[in-house]
């Protein structure tokens, strides 16, 4: 299948792929927005949520915030290298980013393991339902992003489809920003 002419056109001046990524993010924002607004409304109506939130591990949450933000820096480095046509180096920075994602997931897994073993399971009450669902939905995005990044890195190594390095970078920053909202809402507000 060859690419249609339609894909190569750019009436807006923005590349088609980039435009589509922004629309994907727009639809993702309303998905997370709906979930977080629901949580916020519940949080305001239920002061006892603060007590439940006290059982979350703020130190590990902060570490994860640091890990994720650092991985975003690697994604920026990858984009910089790709812009200069250095595919191999871009791929290496992408692998570093994936490393950040894996660290994040490991810490998350450790946290959850602890909380579940202490009896704070998803069905305990609405706070824990929100906690696992929101963080879990975010973690799914981390996993999905990491997989796509590996695929893009395979191409980038061969200096192919280098424009995609920027696209996954945009997405990765979004995943970051969602966490920036989740961390204070679920961990800090006690």
């Amino acid at each position, binding site marked *: 299948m060859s690419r249609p002419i339609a894909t190569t056109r750019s009436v807006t001046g923005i590349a088609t792929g980039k435009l589509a990524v922004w*629309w994907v993010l727009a639809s993702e924002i309303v998905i997370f927005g709906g979930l977080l607004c629901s949580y916020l409304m519940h949080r305001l109506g239920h002061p006892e949520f603060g007590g439940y939130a006290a059982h979350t591990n703020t130190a590990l949450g902060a570490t994860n915030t640091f890990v994720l933000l650092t991985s975003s820096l690697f994604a920026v480095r990858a984009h910089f290298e790709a812009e200069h046509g250095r595919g191999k180096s871009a791929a290496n920075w992408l692998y570093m980013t994936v490393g950040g994602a894996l660290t994040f997931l490991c810490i998350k897994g450790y946290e959850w393991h602890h909380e579940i073993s202490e009896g704070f399971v998803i069905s305990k009450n609405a706070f824990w339902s929100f906690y696992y669902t929101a963080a879990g939905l975010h973690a799914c995005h981390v996993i999905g992003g990491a997989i796509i990044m590996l695929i893009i890195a395979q191409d980038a190594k061969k200096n192919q489809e280098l424009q995609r390095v920027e696209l996954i970078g945009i997405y990765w920053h979004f995943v970051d920003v969602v966490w920036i909202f989740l961390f204070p809402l679920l961990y800090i507000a006690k």
Partner: protein
Amino acid sequence: MSQPAEEHAHAHDDHGHDHDHGDTGAHGHHEDGFIKKYLWSVDHKMIAKQYLFTGMAMGLIGGFFSYAFRMQMAYPGHNVPGFGVVSPNEYNQLITNHGTIMIFWLAMPVLIAAFGNFLIPLMLGCDDMVFPRINRLSYQIFLLSAIVLIASWFVPGGGFGGAWTAYPPLSAKSQYNLTPLGSTMWVIAVALEFVAFLLGGINFVTTAMNSRAPGMKMFDIPMVVWMIVIASILFMASVGPLVAGAVMLVFDQQLGTGFFDPVRGGDPILWQHLFWFFGHPEVYVVLLPAVGIVAEIITVFSRKKLFAYKTVLYTAFGTAVLSFFVWAHHQFIAGIDPRMANVFTATTVLISIPIAEMMFVYVATLYGGSITLTTPMLWALGFIGEFIIGGVTGIFLGSSGSDIYFHDTYFVLAHFHYTFVPIAVIAVFAATTYWFPKMFGTMMNETLGKIHFWGTVIPFNGIFIPLFITGMGGDHRRIYNYANFPEQWTPHLIQMREFATVSLLVLIAFQGIFFINFFYSMFKGKPAGNNPWNANTLEWQTVSPPPHGNFAELPNCYRGPYEYSVPGREEDFWPQNEVG
């Protein structure tokens, strides 16, 4: 505004020597087998037909369901030919799945996905959607969602029966809904369908933004393309919270989470907010494409420019924005703050202004035109007339004072059928009869088309006008058998219910004529030629049906889409791609 200059040169270069990445078949599509051509196609026109036929098949199922439960309404407890006696559980499952199918598996796939896919690349003068493989994936996910929904009717416990709005706790707890598997499969099917339309919508919006023919400016875009694009953005912006809500509902059903359980700090009203925050914009998601279709047909068959193109466009934007602020009018009796009810009453009544304005624009377009009453034109005019009834009755329901009395009666039901039937049935027939020549290269039979039109529109009114009356007489929507309610079991109301049911039977019988006409014309109809209606838009400037790649040479655009009867020209139409 960058436009590769050599674009035309290799518009039909199927061997793609300069497309070195991610390509699967190096030898183009001329030798495609059956599967690649019909089931695994990336061609937007084939995907459009897949959506059209899947939607039509689902519509038949939804129609059959309405036949079964209407028979139960008119003749409770009797054997329904072709179905059997309708049990209370089956009745709930029938109405739930009728609603779900007609909105999500008929209106959405046909109006937006089928006609959006078919028309957007053709009307914008490009060879395909910008992401053909995502387009194919969108249809495949949609098909999967339909299969999941159908499968949910056959699992132990049967299909979901908690109404298409799926309010918890009924939908969240299997000890209430008695369908432990069916209700989860219903949510998953709906969620998959959302994913399919999000993917499709991104394709539509990106194509319209980036891939228009050289020279096609914002206000040269045909109205139906604008409307489908606005609807796609509206869908994208409103469905997100309900996607989150669907995850929450499935978790409540299967993992025992407490999102909608007040005992554990949750709230069942939350679902109503998430559902209607999507559900009300959804009305406009399907209405706007229908309005766009009618705009194309009315201009062509009155040989006049669309009255106030820009006003219609800005009105559509205004409607889209306003539609986010009306959702709580579905919840006037759900215990919301009465002060909020006042706000939502105001916004709801306000939104009837832009819609009324669009209808006036159509009348102004018709005024003084040379009107030809072809079958598509009859459907378009029928849309205007019938939709107005739906709009006017909506004002009673948008006002909290009267809605408290009408809530959940047949008045509500008749009202929204007067909006959705014009959208999902009348506008779909308008579009199908209008673009049929382009889709299949042959003309449909006009006489059969007109018989089908009158045989649909008259019984349609026969069904729902009596239901307004039974609703005002106190008939509640969710009653299985009125014989159990002596005050509703009066001769007058019984006759009304029977009249509605008999009208439905007549309406269903007349659909046979459509299918005969459709399939006979597809194979035996007389050839249509490129432009049988003498229309201006770009899809009519190529052969019928268009080949893969759409145009022998991709067109340039020189003017707006509605230059009909321009003084000083010999012909009364002026194609968008004609030089001069």
